[in-house]
């Protein structure tokens, strides 16, 4: 779309610890990106931008090498080329960290002169990314990235860098990120963010990790190859023809012989289902015809009739040789260690009661809420995807970091979680304090819109239009259209006309989860949150029961 930020990956709420950096004051994130592009003190791989302070930090490291922290009001932008471990075309833009040749010989550092005197050096070719001993393609070699080798007998050799799946696809195209937008029969694809002509549930925001961009063919649901909804009202969806990459696919992690998670990496030899049926061979079409064939799923090890999970099911499964049972799950021994048996205790048992609210800062919260204030699903604590982190059960054994439940392992102000949205690292959770009261009685029927009380907020107060003009610490707010004492171009009545930035009233133009804020008239404090009470709820609101549901879902 032509923005300088298109070449960056954006993550809200992330901060990198002590990388080599430079600090600037810029008016916008685009300006900060330009600082990164023109940084000459080091290779800028990422930048941090805080909109309220308009602080710009250009960074030499990115999330691949630096420690990541949670932080509010900060957005991390990482240059895509430094995150990719794959190449596009000849790989002249490749900036990954592969550092050995296709034969496994370690590469020589580009800045070294032994064992080989290089023709291509960082000094002579400063724009070629000749860092460390990473494979690069400074001479536009048609065979792709290469390096000088540490073997005196071999001056240079090419490296095995997989394709980024922009012009071709590996496996079943689960990671295809190309721009083909027509189906096999030539129909134009419908945009994923459109509901016309076909309404559907594959909304980009619900599948943030699947890159459902524009109307490009994608494979978000375990099909044999990428597909799309079509613009033909008579054809809801169709497969696309994407050529297969000629280079080998990325080396997968070693398979397991036991079950971990959903068992997508299970490579054992169990071939009997949980009910005792023998598995049908994947390459056979009898007794059950199917599309989960080795040809359609070349990277899923659909060998013999072993139980596998090639398509995102909840555990390994197979088609069965029993004509009446098309397919069944398999029972695979778990890789996880068994928890020690709880010793018997004398006396009456006490049922554990979990509240769906939190007390104090929520460190003791042990409920099962797993959604954030903005409705995002929480990432499981034992998962490193999409966000790598160190908040694991092993590191925080007393924090009850189970499943993807909201928790507060680090004594933050309330329970939170990492989110499954790759662009938002973490958020506070959709939980109320246990001591919040809702006692005001309003004699109006439920679906009626209530007269809003202007000096209270609902949710994060994004719609607040009251007249509170002091911060929580008693500082007077600065007028939004003023530049003194704090100059700011980001949040002004001109730039955010819809946000109601009137006078010096507290507002929330950036949807801050902590509520309305303002710049202050205190020269020592650029901005601060305001203390505005929450609006009392109506007595009866649609969809809200007075008695808590059991919610005994079998998901």
């Amino acid at each position, binding site marked *: 779309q032509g923005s300088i930020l298109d070449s960056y990956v954006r993550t809200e709420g992330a901060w990198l610890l002590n990388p080599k950096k430079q600090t600037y004051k810029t008016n916008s994130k685009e300006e900060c990106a330009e600082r990164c592009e023109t940084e000459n003190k080091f290779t800028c791989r990422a930048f941090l931008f805080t909109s309220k302070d308009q602080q710009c930090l250009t960074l030499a490291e990115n999330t691949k090498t630096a420690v990541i922290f949670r932080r509010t009001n900060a957005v991390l932008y990482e240059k895509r080329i430094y995150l990719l471990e794959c190449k596009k075309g000849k790989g002249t833009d490749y900036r990954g960290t592969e550092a050995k040749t296709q034969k496994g010989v370690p590469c020589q550092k580009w800045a070294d002169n032994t064992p080989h005197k290089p023709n291509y050096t960082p000094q002579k070719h400063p724009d070629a990314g000749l860092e460390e001993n990473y494979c690069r393609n400074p001479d536009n070699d048609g065979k792709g990235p290469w390096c000088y080798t540490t073997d005196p007998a071999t001056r240079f050799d090419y490296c095995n860098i997989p394709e980024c799946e922009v012009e071709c696809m590996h496996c079943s195209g689960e990671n295809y990120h190309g721009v083909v937008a027509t189906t096999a029969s030539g129909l134009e694809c419908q945009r994923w963010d459109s509901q016309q002509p076909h309404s559907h549930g594959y909304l980009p925001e619900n599948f943030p990790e699947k890159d459902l961009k524009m109307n490009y063919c994608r494979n978000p649901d375990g099909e044999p190859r990428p597909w799309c909804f079509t613009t033909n009202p008579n054809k809801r969806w169709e497969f696309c023809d994407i050529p297969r990459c000629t280079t080998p696919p990325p080396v997968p992690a070693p398979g397991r012989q036991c079950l971990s998670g959903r068992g997508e990496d299970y490579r054992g030899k169990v071939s009997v289902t949980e009910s005792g049926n023998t598995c049908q061979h994947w390459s056979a079409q009898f007794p059950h015809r199917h599309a989960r064939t080795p040809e359609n799923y070349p990277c899923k090890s659909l060998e013999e009739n072993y139980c596998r999970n090639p398509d995102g099911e909840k555990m390994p499964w197979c088609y069965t040789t029993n004509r009446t049972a098309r397919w069944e799950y398999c029972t695979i021994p778990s890789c996880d260690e068994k928890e020690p048996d709880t010793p018997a205790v004398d006396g009456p048992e006490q049922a554990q009661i979990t509240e769906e609210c939190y007390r104090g800062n929520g460190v003791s919260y042990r409920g099962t809420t797993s959604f954030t204030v903005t409705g995002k699903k929480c990432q499981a604590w034992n998962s490193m995807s999409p966000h790598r982190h160190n908040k694991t059960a092993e590191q925080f054994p007393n924090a009850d970091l189970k499943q993807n439940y909201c928790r507060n392992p680090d004594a933050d102000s309330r329970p939170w979680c990492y989110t499954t949205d790759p662009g938002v690292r973490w958020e506070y959770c959709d939980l109320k304090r246990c001591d919040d009261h809702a006692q005001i009685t309003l004699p109006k029927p439920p679906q009626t819109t209530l007269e809003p009380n202007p000096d209270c907020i609902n949710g994060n107060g994004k719609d607040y239009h009251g007249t509170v003009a002091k911060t929580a610490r008693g500082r007077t707010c600065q007028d939004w259209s003023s530049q003194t004492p704090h100059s700011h171009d980001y949040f002004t009545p001109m730039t955010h006309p819809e946000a109601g930035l009137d006078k010096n009233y507290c507002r929330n133009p950036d949807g801050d989860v902590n509520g309305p804020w303002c710049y202050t008239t205190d020269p020592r404090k650029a901005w601060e949150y305001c203390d505005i009470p929450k609006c009392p709820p109506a007595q009866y609101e649609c969809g809200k029961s007075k008695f808590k*549901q059991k919610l*005994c879902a*079998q998901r």
Partner: protein
Amino acid sequence: IVAGCISHPHSWPWQISLRTSFDMHFCGGTLIDPQWVLTAAHCLEKSSRPSAYKVYLGLHKERALEPSVQKRDVEKLFKEPHRADIALLKLRSPAVINNYVIPVCLPKENAVLGGREECYVTGWGDTKGTGGDGYLKETGFPVIENKICNRPEFLNGRVKKHELCAGNIHGGTDSCQGDSGGPLVCLDQDKFVQHGVTSWGLGCAQPMKPGVYVRVSNYIPWIKSIMENN
């Protein structure tokens, strides 16, 4: 409701029981306004006379002996004009909104579910021997995108675009006969929104055969028009 569990009493205050003139429960429904109930059109096949039906609200047990129970006659029936399995009932007098009787929220017009929402169905219908007979039961499961649900191994193209599927792929829990007309509700932040009207299925709780529900968001204009004009 097959499997699932008996709900906490009055925790689904928009659930109504549609009864014959002899007070026998035969279908579910949902209170969407103090004087309007949403149900399935096929629940109204027995008779086109409003007097053939009664609506019970505020109950937990099918026997309906609790003091919280409210009973209303039906003033008028409105079936969807293009034969979708959805209908509106206007009550002769509005229900009293209290802790036991509260309307559900309706979705925005043409809102789509992305498949990651928590959705629940409730009813006093057939439990297929899974227990809880006579009490309002509930169960929860994900919505399944029509593309998946229409695969040959699922419902093989039977699901239309104005319908949605929901259930567990490996079966085990589902709505069933007697739950028809009742709500499929999904949690949106802190409130429940009705996205489906229980409509049909191939058996109940069978593997690869999820339940099918009428997609309420497709009928918001019709619902609004009927309510405003009546």
